[in-house]
């Protein structure tokens, strides 16, 4: 196992009196796919929003390599090498496909070069969106939007991708394609992936390790294969 990329220690995030994260500790290893699983309301989305700074924890620490994420402004997170892939709705529908992609590299000082290279490789990776580069993003299907959201994140040349329910609302065949893409990004490009999913079956099919959340606490963690083989856990928390 490689070195640790992302560390959460005892993170508590509360909305009023409700503790959406109730003392979560976890580690994400370099170059691996880590699945964060759990039912609706388990705290998965809050976990992502806490890592990327959109909500602040009331206590605990979050570190990404040498950076303290709790203290960092949201706009800075991407410059550390963390790219966020919001669920499909997160593409900016009023902009064109290519404008969405360009946005991904806009913060970089070397964006002239990285944008050209990035566009080329994203279009090669996702031919369906290459065909629609000049079209408004609201003309895309759900699967194409998901590709666009992943492509946009890759434009920033991240070391870690955070994905929020990429399979949501997608047909199984498209979901399988997206998961295969993640596998390839991890093994070929060495990108660390944090995959937040309600669809535990497909997430476990590509993940190296997994963490299961329930009511804001980590109830299980370990190699993805072990969790997938634990029938009791599957029935209790993963719904398959």
């Amino acid at each position, binding site marked *: 196992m490689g070195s640790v990329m992302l560390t959460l220690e005892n993170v508590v995030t509360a909305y009023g009196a409700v503790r959406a994260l109730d003392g979560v500790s976890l580690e994400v290893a370099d170059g691996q796919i880590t699945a964060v699983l759990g039912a609706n309301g388990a705290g998965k989305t809050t976990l992502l929003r806490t890592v*990327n700074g959109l909500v602040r924890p009331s206590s605990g620490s979050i570190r990404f390599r040498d950076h303290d994420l709790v203290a960092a402004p*949201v*706009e*800075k997170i*991407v410059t550390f090498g963390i790219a966020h892939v919001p669920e499909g709705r997160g593409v900016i529908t009023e902009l064109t496909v290519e404008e969405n992609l360009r*946005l991904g590299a*806009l*913060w970089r000082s070397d964006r002239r070069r990285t944008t050209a290279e990035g566009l080329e490789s994203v279009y090669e990776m996702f031919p369906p969106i290459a065909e629609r580069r000049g079209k408004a993003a609201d003309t895309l299907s759900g699967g194409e939007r998901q590709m666009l959201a992943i492509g946009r994140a890759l434009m920033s040349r991240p070391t870690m991708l955070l994905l929020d329910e990429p399979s949501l609302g997608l047909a199984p065949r498209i979901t399988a394609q997206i998961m295969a893409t993640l596998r390839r990004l991890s093994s070929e490009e060495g990108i660390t992936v944090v995959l937040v999913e309600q669809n535990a079956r497909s997430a476990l099919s590509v993940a190296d390790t997994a963490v299961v959340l329930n009511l804001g606490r980590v109830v299980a963690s370990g190699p993805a294969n072990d969790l997938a083989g634990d029938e009791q856990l599957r029935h209790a928390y993963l719904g398959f």
Partner: protein
Amino acid sequence: MTFLNLVIYGIANGMLYAAVALALVLIWRSTHIVNFAQGGMLMFTTFIAWDLVVKHGVNYWIGLVVAMLAGFVMGAVAERLLVRPVEDGPPLNPVIVTLGLLLLLQAVAGMIWGNGLDSFAPQFSLHYYSVDDQVILFSPDYLFIVIAVLLVLVALYVLFQRSPLGLRMRASAFNPEIARLLGVRVGRMLTLGWGLAAMVGALAGVLVAGTQPDYMNPNAFDPLLIFGFTAAIIGGLDSPVGAVAGGISVGVIQQLLDNYVSNDIDAFYVFALLLIVLMIRPSGLFSRTAVRRV
């Protein structure tokens, strides 16, 4: 000939409404606020230019540039200090704040420059052109107005559609949360948007003040705001192209009805037009937003 003349005159006036509409659209797109203070800001910056040019003999073009820069600063400061603190509250709060700012600016302008009637002569002649002894309701000054507003349009188009800064500003307007995750400093973009809008408004203020003698009075700019607002609504508050089309329609229809029906009630026509458009297409003629059914 009369008809053609009225159309030409209407278009020239309409360009001024278009500029104000554009200022309102820029702010609506970035913050979803109707900025009623726009009328006060452009009045105030026009007085600044007038003070410099007429009272202190400063070069007209310097006066115009100072007015536009002052507009930029006022817009940016208004967003940062007045609007942002109330933005997270009920949606009506920022609107009331901008109304308050409008009243404040009108009162302060009256205290500084008085409530009289002063003239701010334009740089170009107000004398109408004529062709074969036929007078055309179009003067060098109106030509300048049309060109100036068109230049602003082109500049805004290039900024928003062709530059990285414009892409950041649009992303911030359409989806602030995603924009921040992509490294865009959204707050800064909003401030910039308000500044730019007020700058466009400032240009419209100086231009309109030159079209008639005795224009310089703190309340004289109200119709410009009202017709500009109507133009923006007609065009669809989120569409810059719509703002210009709305401005020109309001200008032309106003002139035609003034002449062929009666000029006693010209504001009435504009509001009738507004009502008709809102009944047919509630989101405005050029809006991309789908009509929401309740």
